[in-house]
């Protein structure tokens, strides 16, 4: 009755404390980390910083609205204030109706100045997305499948996120420790059940990153996912297994 490990016998594994053993069995210890690169993250950070710098146009109340909460009896705005500047641009409404509190209410239809700001912000978002090629995705996988390295790549591991689409299922594979396919070889994904192999797509891993596979059949009908190493021109029989995982 102790949590302290006892000395191991010859050839026996050193005992680990229960809490460590518990964490070694937890997905968080092994789940493949996102395939984003540091450069992509920096690009995202810079893009969001640009959006944040434009944010006051959205978060700050329109300058004309400042007067709506400012009693008419208050001190006049300084000549170089934003309200004065807005007035000089014609955004303030000299004939605006008085609010019940004595302020000035600007009808929403007069906030047309927001249109170009919104359009510019939308364009900025689009440019940021295109420039980085990466956006924080809100896609929710319908399932995730953990893959362990097998004979052909024992140190590899990965995770597949299954995302339902109109025409089938998009399979996003994050893989770590899998070497680029050698000359004349490639990798292929398979869904397997009772000796039936349904191909899910091929890739070469010449650059580290996410792999996109595709399934036109519901994977819940299958028992296992495998990634094999294939030789070009050697036919469609599954080759050496490099990654495998159960449903």
């Amino acid at each position, binding site marked *: 009755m102790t949590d302290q490990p006892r000395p191991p016998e010859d050839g026996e594994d050193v005992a680990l404390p*229960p809490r460590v053993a518990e964490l070694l*069995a937890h*997905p*968080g210890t092994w789940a493949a980390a996102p395939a984003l690169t540091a450069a992509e993250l920096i690009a995202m950070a810079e893009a969001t910083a640009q959006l944040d710098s434009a944010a006051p146009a959205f978060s700050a109340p329109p300058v004309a609205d400042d007067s709506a909460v400012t009693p008419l009896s208050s001190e006049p705005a300084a000549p170089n204030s934003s309200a004065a500047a807005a007035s000089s641009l014609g955004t303030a409404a000299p004939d605006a109706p008085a609010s019940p509190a004595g302020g000035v209410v600007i009808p929403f239809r007069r906030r047309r100045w927001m249109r170009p700001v919104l359009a510019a912000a939308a364009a900025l978002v689009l440019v940021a997305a295109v420039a980085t090629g990466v956006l924080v995705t809100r896609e929710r*996988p319908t399932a995730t499948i953990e893959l362990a390295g*097998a004979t052909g790549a024992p140190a590899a591991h990965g995770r597949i996120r299954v995302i339902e689409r109109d025409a089938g299922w998009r399979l996003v594979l994050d893989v770590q420790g899998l070497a680029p396919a050698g000359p004349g070889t490639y990798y292929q994904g398979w869904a397997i059940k009772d000796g039936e192999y349904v191909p899910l797509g091929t890739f070469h891993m010449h650059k580290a990153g996410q792999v996109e596979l595709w399934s036109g059949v519901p994977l819940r009908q299958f028992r296992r996912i495998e990634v094999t190493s294939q030789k070009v021109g050697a036919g469609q029989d599954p080759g050496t297994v490099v990654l495998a995982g159960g449903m």
Partner: protein
Amino acid sequence: MDDTRLAGRFATGDEDGFAEVYTTFRGPVFGMAVTMLTDPGLAEEAVQQAFIGLWRGRERYDPARDLAAWVFGVARKAAIDVYRRERRKPVPADQTEVAVDTLSAERLWEAWQVRRAVEGLPADEAAVVRLAHYYQMTHSEIAAHLGVPMGTVKSRSHRAHRKLAEALGHLVDDKPGETGD
């Protein structure tokens, strides 16, 4: 794994230093986020938010501070932010804390350390540990899965467990229940 040198690199504020920090800590950050959020997709968002925050706040980092603890703090906050956003509606702060802190900061820190420890293992030893603990395979099953002799599996497993016990020895000395579970 020299966090002091890494802290100095990060403090320079350049992209290379950030890239080293990202390479070193993205696994533990992701693992901690998965442990807290359970959803890999949400955890991935937390990783992005955490490292974007680290990049944008790199000038505030004091290299005299423990870099791992700094990154952990930023990452945990990012994961909590994602968690709260997913709640989609405001909830009393204490209720949120209870829900998030089902896994206390101490417990998440342990998860972080275990993840770092396994990432410090050679790939072949880590594979054996993963198959044994996560997939609950026996040594003979691992040998068959990897296509290597049983003796190879045993020796890799022995080396790996010895290293893990050394790296996580301080957890061995903790008494259960001190983690705020």
